[in-house]
């Protein structure tokens, strides 16, 4: 079995896991299980990042999404539902419209992507070497301004989150 065939198998397994766990996030009744499937989905997305030669971003994805965002959500679930295992009706009344619009949109985009060949013309590439070095240079040279503005954004969200989550003493 060649190397590219291996990559093919890994890709199909990862995509299968991504899509099934994403479906579980939407359809399961227990919110806690939803969060666990979300973590699984985010992990598999990180795996796909590795296949696309974005190792650093895969690590960042695991650290930020799995390590921070998903854990934050589990905290929120535990703080807000009295019983994390309680089963509730999960869907609201506009199910049919929502499903219709989204499925239509997904189908349209799949067909359009499959029919667009411009990306196939450029498949003969070698992966970028030292991608972390290049990413660092981009962040420090070309994209330094958005990088700095993100720090302002983090400060603003930090202050905002504290203001809202704090219990006031009257």
């Amino acid at each position: 079995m060649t190397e590219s065939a291996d990559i093919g198998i890994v890709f199909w397994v990862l995509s299968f896991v991504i899509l099934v766990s994403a479906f579980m996030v939407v359809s399961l009744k227990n919110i806690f299980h939803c969060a666990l499937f979300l973590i699984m989905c985010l992990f598999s997305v990180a795996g796909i990042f590795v296949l696309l030669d974005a190792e650093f971003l895969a690590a960042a994805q695991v650290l930020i999404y799995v390590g921070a965002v998903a854990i934050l959500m589990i905290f929120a679930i535990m703080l807000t539902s009295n019983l994390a295992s309680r089963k509730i009706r999960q869907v609201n009344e506009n199910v049919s419209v929502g499903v219709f619009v989204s499925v239509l949109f997904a189908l349209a985009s799949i067909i359009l992507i499959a029919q667009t060949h411009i990306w196939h013309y450029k498949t003969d590439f070698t992966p970028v070497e030292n991608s972390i070095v290049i990413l660092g240079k981009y962040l420090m040279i070309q994209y330094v301004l958005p990088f700095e503005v993100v720090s302002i954004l983090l400060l603003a969200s930090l202050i905002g989150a504290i203001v809202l989550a704090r219990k006031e003493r009257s």
Partner: protein
Amino acid sequence: MIPISAYLIVAAVLFGIGTVGVLISRNMIVVFMCVELMLNAANLALIAFSRALNIMDGHVFVFLALAVAAAEAAVGLAIVLAVYRNRETVNIDRFDMMKW
């Protein structure tokens, strides 16, 4: 060799599932998880495009989008807590004080 379109189609389906979740879900935290799924689909598409074009701008975009998502998550869950403190529920259709 996996064609880039395969990655893009996975991203599109993931985005579609996320959109369905946002539109039909009743629990705010699940809605929020589905937004994260959508953002992940967008990130996946960006990296796939970066790979196809063999340039790195998309990686920078994804890196900063991750930071923004974390910031958004912090604020969002703080609002969820504030709502819960007032209403004792996090279900969307209980928010009927103003008509939607």
